[in-house]
């Protein structure tokens, strides 16, 4: 009798545990950029999660914020150890590395299975960035940026620049820089210091179609004439720059304290400048980056993306990824952050189009050049980036003429790619 009772108890306990196991939450690890995992952004992400969990009982999403490097190294290590997060964000520029290590699922089938209405919501160029080949797709583009030019109106007015019309071409922009410099202020940050600012200047006067890498031939697409024009801009700007990079806090400080006239960068600095406008009366605006000719514009663009890992949770991970990137969520996200994103339908939402920064960003993206194409094809070696900035700096420092610098740069880039 006792033995029978014990057996029954054991069976009941086992059944309870097994049942509980079957019903227990399917946990998804969701990695986002650290600034999306704090403050108001986190609250909205948690709202998305709560809504998704309510629609999908038994699913639990665990959100985790990580810095840029942590995201990439965590995904690479996760791919090696089989502990990848299920849904995650990252930047297009590291997409190829993630494909190489098997961290990204090819979502082409899932994408094509979605209703046309969903697929049509997205910016076509952004989707093309995620699709290196006809049947290969690795991401859904998420937030992004098109570069804009912040102008310190006080500095420009003091320098005698008419601020009613932004500079339309490089020549006009350069003229204004000279006036600013003559007034004893800095015209621009040092644009040679980071890869994105070199790319940004190239987009002003270079051939935007010839920026990138031919991974098959292992050669850069950049042509000497285009690069010579870009290098000449670095020489022209050298005596007028602040010596700080576009990402330095020092650059923002110079802008806020009316020492710097132009800052070409993404929309993420706007909250700082808007705060300064409130606190200390900073007079500024943002306009499109001038181009080589009137009507064209420079600037670069790129996207953060959402993607999923190959693995047992793939189906539900895709469902969640497509939920957070759907128009309604993207519009809410855009309104909260006042930031452009790749969901074109969300960008057309009347409440979103009332936000000036987003309107300008949407316009900027139309002209902007992809910062590091082609994506998801080959990993850009680090030497490619360092050669670009080092050579731009060397030309600005007067070690090479623009023409010599361009030729040397292309030779070194090809050497780097060949290795």
């Amino acid at each position: 009798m006792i033995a029978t009772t014990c057996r029954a108890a054991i069976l009941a306990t086992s059944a309870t545990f097994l049942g509980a196991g079957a019903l227990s939450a399917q946990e998804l690890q969701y990695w986002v950029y650290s600034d999306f995992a704090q403050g108001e952004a986190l609250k909205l992400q948690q709202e998305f999660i709560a809504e998704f969990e309510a629609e999908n009982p038994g699913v639990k999403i665990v959100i985790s914020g990580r810095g840029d490097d942590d995201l990439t190294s965590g995904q690479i290590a996760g791919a090696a150890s089989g502990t990848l997060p299920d849904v995650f964000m990252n930047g297009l520029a590291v997409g190829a590395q993630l494909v190489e290590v098997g961290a990204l699922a090819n979502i082409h089938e899932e994408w094509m299975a979605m209703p046309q209405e969903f697929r049509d919501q997205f910016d076509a160029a952004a989707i093309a960035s995620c699709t290196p080949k006809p049947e290969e797709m690795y991401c859904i583009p998420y937030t992004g940026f098109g570069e804009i030019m912040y102008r310190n109106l006080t500095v420009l007015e003091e320098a005698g620049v008419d601020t009613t019309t932004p500079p339309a071409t490089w020549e006009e922009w350069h003229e204004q820089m000279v006036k600013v410099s003559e007034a004893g202020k800095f015209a621009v940050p040092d644009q040679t210091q980071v890869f994105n600012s070199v790319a940004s200047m190239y987009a002003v006067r270079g051939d935007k179609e010839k920026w990138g890498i031919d991974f098959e031939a292992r050669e850069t697409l950049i042509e000497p004439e285009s690069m010579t024009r870009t290098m000449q801009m670095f020489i022209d700007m050298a005596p007028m720059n602040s010596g700080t990079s576009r990402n330095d806090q020092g650059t923002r400080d110079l802008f806020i304290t009316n020492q710097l006239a132009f800052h070409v960068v993404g929309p993420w600095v706007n909250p700082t400048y808007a705060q300064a406008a409130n606190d200390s009366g900073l007079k500024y605006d943002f306009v499109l980056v001038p181009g080589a000719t009137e009507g064209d514009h420079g600037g670069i663009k790129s996207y953060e993306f959402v993607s999923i890992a190959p693995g047992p949770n793939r189906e539900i991970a895709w469902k969640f990824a497509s939920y957070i990137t759907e128009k309604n969520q993207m519009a809410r996200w855009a309104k909260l952050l006042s930031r452009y994103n790749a969901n074109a339908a969300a960008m057309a939402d009347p409440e979103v189009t009332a936000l000036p920064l987003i309107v300008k960003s949407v316009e900027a993206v139309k002209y902007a050049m992809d910062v590091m194409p082609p994506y998801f094809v080959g990993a850009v070696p680090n030497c490619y980036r360092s050669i670009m900035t080092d050579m731009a700096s060397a030309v600005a420092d007067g070690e090479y003429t623009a023409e010599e610098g361009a030729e040397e740069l292309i030779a070194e880039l090809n050497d780097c790619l060949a290795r």
Partner: protein
Amino acid sequence: MSARRLLPHYAMVLPFGVLFAAFFLYPIVSGLYYSFHDWNAATEARFVGLANYEAVLNSRDFSRSMSNLLTYIAITVPLGITVAFGLALLVDSFSGFWANFFRSAFFLPVVLPAFLAATIWRWMYAPNFGLVNMVLGWFGMPSINFLNDTGMMLYALIAVDVWVSAGFNMVILLAGLKNIPQDLYEAARLDGASRIQQVRYITIPMLAPVLFFVITYGFISALQVFDVPWLLTGSSFTAYGGRRSALLFPVMDMMGRAFGSVRFGEAAAYGFILTAVIIFITAAMFAVRAWRTPK
């Protein structure tokens, strides 16, 4: 002793042995294995012989980082130890509250997280508004771009490193100073030795073993310099070393190859090259010390 009697001893050492093998020996051995392979952490490793070592040794960034490292070591190790020694002598000359106060104050940078220390210095070095440039401005000197002027960047880094490491070395040297018998100084004073002569003929010789440790440790730390230049230049895995790679150092380059370019085999080879350099320098220092120590 019979094996049976030794068994409990081995059993007690076993947990350490297992952890040591898992977290120390295995990474070293697997690192050595991967240094001869083309491996991106996810796909099958492919044997490439010495190709990774060749790629590292022939790369532009390796020679640049080594050149930066040599200059950095040549200045930072002697300067850091001289400053620490000076501070130790200064603190040693105080007693009671002031000795404790200065010891704590000079040690503070050691316990400060590296990112915080680097952030503070980034602000202090900021052009035009930074504290250092403000002070220079009071003397009518122009603003210096410490973190972007390629002629200044290395010295700016050395200043931060000396500031961070001086406190640690000072505490060790101070402990050494406290162990020097006071009667040696009394005898020297009776013989009419000046303060400088006392330092030259008593303090430094009596501190020799401690100084040897501090110098060796300083070399090893300097060879592995990473966090401060990484943070000062706002580096990431894909872009590091600051303007014209003026603050590029071997460990930074190694990290970039691993997580920026996903070339773990090359990064492992880099690690072993650096390890060989560290072992060589440390062995050379031990050899010099053994040669100079009277038998």
